[in-house]
């Protein structure tokens, strides 16, 4: 039996309308399934909204009907058009399935673009703000220590749990919507301090000096980590920067189900080994050495040289600093004719790049800054029969293999830019 507060009882009686009532009914059922005894208040949410591909399974153009079936799991048609999401939960959109302005560049139709805009307009009216990024922490969506959040993006869950000390489980697109609407989630899993301790130590013995190093390290840790485990990273390295740690978190969450990771001495709940493990010690220790690094790299990057006609940087979405690095490197150079060169970020960061002059440099070289999505979210239409694809995100390289027959190359941003300049990947 889940214990409810007076406010929750009021929502459950319908005091805040049928939409919130149904959302709380689902959350209580979810809590019962998990074995949770009470709920906690959710104050931040990122949501997978707009014309997401899984909505296509419903043969209807009525967003109320689609939202009710897919997100709320009911055949009862709930009114999303005239009901606000929880007033105490700051809700923003997660990555969309199209660039925010240019559908043609990513191989989508105007019909799709208009449908996406229409669905997002309904979400906007319901109180959801538009961030449309996998890295909302770059824009000020920041749940802090002890705050409870929901998100549909695993790398974001990892960032907020690990680095900010906020609390969130990986619970998916439906439960994120229920929580955003009723402002509650089961008090279970990473929402409870006793479940946030490290279970396995990873001693870093390979190079850990660049965004790519940390990307590959994360990919390796995720491959090795036992199911349900939480890593603590130790070793003789300089603490990763924001650009590096964002890669680390995204790639651990690609090859494992973990959304929490301690970095000894750096992350707030991992200042000492005792703190990280709750004094219980770890169940196992693994070394990550140069051999492991090479093994991961071989899984991410094809081993034969070949032509490259599509280059995509920014997984997770680029910071302004990374865009500046690209602009500095590209200054006075030209992307090879026939190569499409995309940098993915959030649209406010693109605007910052514009006023900083970086956008101009990148566009003059023949590149584009794209926003609000990425190749794996857009799907295969973005590749347009490419022969070779070069990427600087391990998560992107991992998932894109199942979407294309093109050669997939993975390397740091400079190597990817070199491929864009020459039109080929040299081994």
């Amino acid at each position, binding site marked *: 039996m889940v214990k409810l507060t007076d406010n929750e009882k009021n929502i459950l009686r319908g005091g805040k309308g049928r939409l919130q009532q149904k959302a709380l009914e689902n959350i209580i*059922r979810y809590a019962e399934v*998990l074995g949770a005894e009470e709920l906690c208040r959710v104050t931040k949410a990122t949501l997978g909204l707009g014309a997401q591909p899984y909505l296509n399974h419903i043969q209807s153009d009525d967003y109320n009907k689609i939202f009710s079936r*897919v997100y709320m799991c009911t055949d009862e048609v709930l009114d999303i058009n005239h009901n606000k999401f929880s007033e105490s939960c700051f809700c923003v959109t997660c990555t969309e399935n199209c660039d925010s302005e240019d559908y043609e560049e990513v191989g989508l139709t105007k019909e799709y673009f208009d449908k996406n805009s229409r669905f997002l307009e309904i979400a906007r009216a319901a109180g959801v703000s538009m961030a449309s990024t996998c890295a909302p922490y770059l824009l000020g969506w920041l749940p802090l220590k002890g705050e409870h959040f929901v998100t549909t*993006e695993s790398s974001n869950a990892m960032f907020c749990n690990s680095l900010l000390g906020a609390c969130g489980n990986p*619970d998916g697109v439906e*439960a994120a919507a229920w929580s955003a609407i009723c402002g509650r989630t089961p008090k279970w899993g990473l929402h409870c301090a006793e479940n946030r301790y490290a279970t396995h130590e990873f001693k870093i013995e390979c190079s850990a000096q660049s965004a790519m190093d940390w990307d590959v390290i994360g990919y390796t840790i995720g491959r090795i980590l036992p199911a349900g485990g939480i890593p603590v990273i130790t070793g003789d390295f300089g603490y990763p920067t924001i650009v590096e740690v964002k890669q680390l978190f995204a790639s651990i969450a690609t090859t494992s189900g973990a959304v929490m990771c301690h970095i000894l001495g750096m992350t707030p709940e991992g200042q000492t080994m005792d703190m990280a493990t709750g004094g219980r010690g770890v169940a196992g220790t693994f070394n990550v050495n140069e051999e492991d690094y090479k093994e991961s790299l071989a899984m991410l990057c094809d081993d034969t040289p070949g032509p490259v006609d599509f280059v995509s940087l920014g997984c997770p979405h680029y910071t302004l600093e990374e865009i500046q690095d690209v602009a500095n490197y590209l200054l006075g150079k030209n992307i090879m004719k026939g190569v499409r060169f995309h940098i993915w970020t959030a649209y406010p960061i693109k605007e910052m790049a514009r006023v900083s002059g970086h956008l101009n440099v990148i566009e003059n070289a023949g590149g584009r800054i794209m926003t609000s999505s990425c190749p794996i979210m857009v799907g295969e239409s973005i590749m347009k029969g490419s022969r070779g694809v070069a990427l600087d995100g391990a998560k992107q390289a991992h998932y894109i293999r199942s979407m294309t027959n093109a050669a997939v190359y993975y390397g740091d941003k400079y190597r990817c830019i070199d491929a864009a300049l020459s039109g080929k990947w040299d081994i």
Partner: protein
Amino acid sequence: MKTVLKGRGAIKGIAEGEALVCPDSIQGWAGIDEITGVIIEKGHVEEGTSINGRVLVIPSSKGSNCWSGHFNSAMINGVKPAGWVVTQIDSRVGVAAVVVGSPMVVDFSEIDPCKVIKTGDWIKVNGDTGEVEISQK
């Protein structure tokens, strides 16, 4: 011969069906075909088998924050497991349980159902009592 395992009933109701045992679970992204329910995960022990009408026996979830969404899409297309047996519940499985609604028994502390149940065994999942009855094929 019948064996009974005791776990915790997570979704009430009784379901019967042929076991589909996935000791390494099923990944979220590109794990199942959302129209046919066929497992499409590369190298999966049951690659090519449909989850439809089966009792799915898994240790927990695997990968993708939106694990439940793939089972949700399959269900909308009329395809779902008859019941679930899950060694240790996690949040992704919890959402999928609510979304799909099939009887589910979870949290086996002593015996791992993934090791005891074989694909093809006839399974009765009792979400009311937390009992899982195994009739070996």
